[in-house]
């Protein structure tokens, strides 16, 4: 039985120049203590940046994208879900425009690369 600090983050990415869909998952149970702490910190930062509720998060990312990301062509489109203990959080949109969400997405990708 895992404790409340257990975190699983799944990143699904589409678009980009290549136009291909790829996905990566990071599970704190599979990481070192330092890596798991880093993952939790990034999830908390993303929640702080765009809100706690699913709807708020999606809306906030969308608003940010509308504000500054409208002219981007070949940008990535993200769907990110984070399971933190018993709670689930979700973000979607061109998360590149919300730094905390993009950092989370990039970290999960880096973990998958074994960095």
């Amino acid at each position: 039985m895992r404790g409340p600090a257990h975190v699983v983050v799944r990143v699904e990415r589409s678009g980009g120049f290549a136009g291909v869909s790829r996905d990566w998952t990071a599970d704190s149970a599979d990481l070192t203590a330092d890596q798991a702490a880093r993952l939790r910190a990034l999830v908390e930062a993303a929640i702080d940046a765009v809100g706690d509720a699913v709807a708020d998060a999606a809306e906030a990312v969308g608003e940010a994208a509308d504000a500054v990301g409208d002219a981007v062509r070949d940008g990535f489109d993200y769907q990110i879900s984070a399971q933190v203990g018993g709670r689930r959080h979700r973000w979607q949109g061109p998360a590149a425009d919300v730094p905390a969400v993009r950092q989370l997405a990039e970290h999960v990708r880096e973990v998958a690369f074994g960095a």
Partner: protein
Amino acid sequence: MHHVCSIVPPYMLEALATQGDASQREAAVATLAVDNTHRTRRAIAAASLVGTRHELPTLTGATPQPHRSVYDAHHTEQLPGSLVRAVGGAPVADGAVDRAYDGLGATFTFYRDVLDRDSIDGRGLPMLASVHVGRRWDNAQWDGSQMQFGDGDGQIFGDFTASLDVIGHELTHGVTQYEAQLAYHGQSGALNESMSDVFGVMVKQHALGQTADQADWLIGAELMLPGFHGTALRSMKAPGTAYDDPRLGGKDPQPATMAGYLHTLQDNGGVHLNSGIPNHAFYLVAVALGGHAWDVAGHIWYGALTDPALRPTATFSVFAAATVRAARHGYGTAEVAAVTQAWRAVGVRVRGVPAT
């Protein structure tokens, strides 16, 4: 960071770059081009908001030259980074920088010599590119004012400056931004992507001096690393056949005809997927007419892209009609027939032309 001292204040340079006469504009742009960046980017943004879809000046007198600057982002996302090669600068010991610089030049030359267009906006706008963007960033993109190139993930994708068609693709997003302004979603978004593939691949063919039947019609072939199961990211000759690699989700999903049109919420409604349909139509026209793709087919597509009647929400059918109009306007019955046949072959009805 590189700064240029000027007795002309920045606000005046920006005003001249967007509102001056031809010689004033050229001088202001040249000054802005070697200056960094917030100023230049602001001027570019301002220029994108005024005078769009204007009638472009015919290139006369002195031959326009590319105002290009390449920056190194040093594997960060702080853009544009540090200036490493400016207008007229000598090559540096960094392949990505020099490929970007040369690619901007080749793209500028194609638009100037073939389509009589002076840079992105048709009025000599400086071209900015940043290389080494992000960590293992496997992408290239246009952000509305500059191009960005990553080094690739080192597993599937290499340096995104490796393919000249990729550089031409990104710069063409800027051209579309100043012309049809095709909305980046659904069919208009797929047209936006297709414009970039069409003109990007012609930039490469023009640089290589290839005719339509000599060209490979591949997009992104040179950036794929050894071990990749395929030839490129996209094939305009045979959409859906560029790769079959489990790391990219299996087989190339691009449709060649409307029978395979993909309805999806991802990728802004499949803009990089359904672009295979208009891509293939262009290929069919170019091959049917023979010679260089840019000789006739390229001019027809450019005529459609710059047609003031083409709206940002254009569908495939509406764009097809624009290409037929452009063929009628500039060429004869054989060219009109080739264009009409190509759209019919990919299953797109030309608006205003009865289906047979």
